[in-house]
C-alpha cells in the first residue's frame, strides 16, 4: 500500500512522525549540555616588581610579589566610574542597592567581574554569568583599582598546581562539599528564595578556585584551614576535567540532571514511539 497523502489516516501518521521528530530534536537540543570549556589564560601584563614606595599598590596574585601598576589603577578607576560607581558609589563604599567593595579583596572582585556577573544589568535575586564586556586586562585593572581602595580579602588563587593534582581526590572532595548544591555532575540547581547554585560547565580554573576561597553570594567560604591548597587544586582539576569534559560513554548526557530528564525521554520518546508503532500496526476504528 503506497503512502497516499490524500487519505487522512496516512496524513495524520506523517504529522505524528514529524511531530515526534521535532520533539526529539528539541529534546536533544535542550538537554545536550555542551561542555564548552572557556579557558582564560591569566595575563600578567602590566606588572612590575615591588619597591618600597609602591607599597600602596596592591598585590593581586597569590604566591607572586608583583604589584599592580599606577596605570592599571588609573585605567581601573575610569572603568569603575563608568560601569560600577552608579550602584557601588564613587568610592566603592556601596549604597542601598549594592554592597561595599572596599576590603573584599582581588579574588572576590575578579570572580564577579570575570564571570560577567558584574556589572549587573538589572536588580535581581542572584546575578547570573553573562558575556564579559571587558578584556582580561581591563578586568585586572578594575580589580587593581578596587583592591587599592583598602586592604583585605584574599588574593587571586594560584592554580599552577592543578595539572599535577589528584583528580580522584577532587571527585571525593567535590562529592562531599560541592555536590549538595551544584549536583554531582555540576549541572547546578535551585536554592531557596530564587537563589541558585550555578552550572559549573563554564567556569575557568581560576574562577573555580576564586569561588571556593571567597564564597560568593550564598556559597560558603572554604579557607585554607578548611580546604588546603592541594585539595583546592584537586577540586579545580576535577571540575575542569571530570565535570566539564565528562566521560559520557552512554551517549547524550541529557543535561546531567538525572532521572528527571531520563523519565521525560523514556516516556515521551520510548513509550511515545512505541505507541506510534501501535498506531501503525493496529486499526484506528
Amino acid at each position, binding site marked *: 500500500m503506497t503512502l497516499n497523502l*490524500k487519505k487522512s489516516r496516512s496524513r495524520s501518521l506523517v504529522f505524528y512522525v514529524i511531530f515526534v521528530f521535532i520533539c526529539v530534536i528539541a529534546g536533544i537540543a535542550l538537554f545536550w549540555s555542551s561542555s564548552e570549556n572557556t579557558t582564560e589564560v591569566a595575563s600578567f601584563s602590566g606588572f612590575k616588581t615591588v619597591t618600597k614606595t609602591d607599597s600602596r599598590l596592591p598585590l593581586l596574585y597569590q604566591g607572586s610579589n608583583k604589584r599592580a601598576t599606577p596605570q592599571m589603577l588609573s585605567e581601573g578607576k575610569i572603568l569603575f566610574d563608568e560601569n560600577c560607581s552608579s550602584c557601588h558609589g564613587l568610592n566603592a563604599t556601596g549604597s542601598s542597592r549594592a554592597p561595599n567593595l572596599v576590603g573584599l579583596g582581588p579574588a572576590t572582585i575578579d570572580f564577579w567581574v570575570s564571570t560577567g556577573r558584574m556589572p549587573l544589568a538589572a536588580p535581581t*535575586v542572584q546575578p547570573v554569568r553573562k558575556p564579559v564586556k571587558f578584556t582580561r586586562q581591563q578586568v585586572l585593572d578594575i580589580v587593581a583599582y578596587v583592591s587599592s581602595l583598602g586592604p583585605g580579602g584574599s588574593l587571586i588563587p594560584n592554580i599552577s598546581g592543578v595539572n599535577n593534582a*589528584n*583528580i*580522584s581526590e*577532587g*571527585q*571525593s572532595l567535590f*562529592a*562531599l562539599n560541592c*555536590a*549538595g*548544591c551544584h549536583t*554531582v*555532575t555540576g549541572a*547546578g*540547581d*535551585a*536554592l*531557596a*528564595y*530564587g537563589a*541558585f*547554585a550555578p552550572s559549573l560547565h563554564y567556569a575557568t580554573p581560576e574562577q573555580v578556585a576564586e569561588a571556593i576561597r571567597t564564597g560568593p553570594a550564598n556559597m560558603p567560604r572554604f579557607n585554607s584551614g578548611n580546604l588546603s591548597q592541594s585539595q583546592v587544586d584537586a577540586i579545580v582539576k576535577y571540575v575542569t*576535567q*571530570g565535570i566539564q569534559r*565528562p*566521560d*559520557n*560513554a*552512554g*551517549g*547524550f*548526557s*541529557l543535561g*546531567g*540532571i*538525572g*532521572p*528527571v530528564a*531520563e*523519565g*521525560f*525521554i*523514556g*516516556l515521551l*520518546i*520510548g*513509550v511515545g*514511539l*512505541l*505507541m506510534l*508503532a*501501535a*498506531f501503525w*500496526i*493496529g*486499526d*484506528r*476504528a
Partner: protein
Amino acid sequence: MSQSSSATQRQKKDPLESALKWVDERLSVGKGGRNLLDKIFPDHWSFMLGEIALYSFVILVLTGIFLTLYYVPSAAEVTYHGSYAPLYGQKMSVAYLSSINLSLDVRFGLLMRQMHHWAADIFLGAIAVHMARIFFTGAFRKPRELNWIIGVTLLILSISNGFLGYSLPDDLISGTGIRIMFSIVESIPFVGTYLAFWLFGGNYPGNGIIIPRMFVLHVLILPAIIAALIGAHLALLVHHKHTQFPGPGKTEKNVVGSPFWPNFFFKTNGFLFLTAAVIAALGALAQINPIWLYGPYVPYKVSYAVQPDWYMGWLDGALRIMPAWELQIGRFMIPNQFFPAVLLPGICFTIFFAWPFIEAWYTKDHSEHHLLDFPRYRPKRTAVGAGGLSFFFMLFFASSTDVMANYLQISLNIVLWFFRIATYIVPFVVGIITYIVCKELQKTGEMAGKRKRFTLVLRSAEGGYSTVYAEARPGDKDVFAKEPEPVELTEEVNELLSEQAELITTASELPEVVKETFPKGQSGVKTVARD
C-alpha cells in the same frame, strides 16, 4: 481434501506434516491447537499497549541475565584500581565496583545496562498507559475483575522491582534513596522500626546485608512472581477472549479481528522487534544512570537533583509537598513521612484493587461485558479517571520542584507552594472539564473530530433562507460507508484460505490467462479447473 491429488502427490509426504503428526502423537496438539491458532485478536491499536509492557519485560529478562553474570551483590569495601581516573584510589562497595567495571570495561556491558534501565522505564510507562486504557474503556468489568487485580499487583511489583534494580549499583544517588526507604519503613506504627532493623541488619546503614537481599529480590523472587502473574494475566485473557469496541458486526457474543496464526503472530512478533529496536536505540544514544559520574555511595555525602526514577516520582513529590506535620500521641509518634509515603500509596492501591467492585456497586451492573465503552459515553468514570491521573501527574511533577525552579528561574519556595495547592485543585478542575467534554462529545456522535460536510445557506429571490448539504469532499467522514462483515473461521473457511494460499501468488507468477483477466498490479484468486 480433494480427490484430485495425483498418485505421486499422495506418496510424497510433506515433512512439515510428518513433524506435526509426530508432535501430535505425543502432545495432542491437534485437539486444542486449533483453538489457539484460530483465536481472534481484535486489531485496535490501543489493545497493543499491554504488548509494549510484555515485550519490554522480555528485554528486561534477557538483558538482566547478562547483567547478573557481572554484578557482584556485596557491600564489602574495596579500593578502586580500575580504568576510570576520577575514581582511582577511592573506597567503594564491591557492588559499585562491579557495576563500574560492567559499564566501562566489559564489552557490550554499558549497552546492556542502559538497555535494561531504559526497558524498565518503558515497561512501567507501558503498564501505566495500558492500565489507563483498561480503565477508561471499562475492560475491568465482569468477568475480568480478577485480571484487573492481577494487573494492579503487577504494577506494584514492577514499581518495587524497578526501585530495587536501580539501587543495586550502590551509587551516590540511589544510595540516598535507600536511606529514604529506611526512614519510610521505620515510620510505620508498631512494626516500623522492627522491620527496618530486621531488613537492614541493624540501624542504618546496617551490616551491609541489604545489598544481597535487594539483589535476590530483584533477580529471583520478584521476577518469578511477575512472570507467573504475567502468565496468569495472559491465560485469563485467552480464556475470556479479548474485549472489543462496539462496531458493525461486533456483538457481545463474538470476537472480531485477526486470527492468531499467521496474522496476529506476525504483527505481534514485529512489535516485539520494534520494541527491542526502540530500547536498543535509546540504550545506544541516551545516557541513563551514569554511575561513574556520580561516585560511590557514602552515607555522609549527597548530591542535589536527586529524584528517583519516574515511576517512584509520585511518592517523592508527595513527600515534598507534605506540610511539616507530625502526630505525637503521648510517647508515640507517627512521623511525617508515614502519611505521603505509606498511607497515600496504601489508599491509592486499595482504591485501584477495589475499583471494579466499587463501580459494580455504584452502577448496580453485575452483567458480563465483552464490548468496551467509548470513554465519552461513561462521563463519570472518565472524569474520575482523568482527575485521578492528573493527581498522579501533579505529584509526579512535584518531585522535580528544584529542577523546575532552576530551569524556569522561579523561586523554589513559590514552586513548592504552587504544588502544595495545585495538587488538590487541578484534579477537580480536570475532572469537571473532562465531564463536560465527554457530554459534548456524546452530542456529536460519530462525527466528533471528523470534518463535516459543508452546509450551504441559500437565499431565495423572495428573501427566504434555506440550507442544503454540499457534496462530500475526499476525506470527509463517510458515515454511510459499509464496513465489511466479519467472516467466521469455520472449517470451510480454513480450507478455502489454505487452498487460496496455494492459488494466490504474486502477480509475476500468475499464468498468462489470469494476467489478462486481472490487470497489472491487482492480485487475485484464479479459479483452477481441477480434475
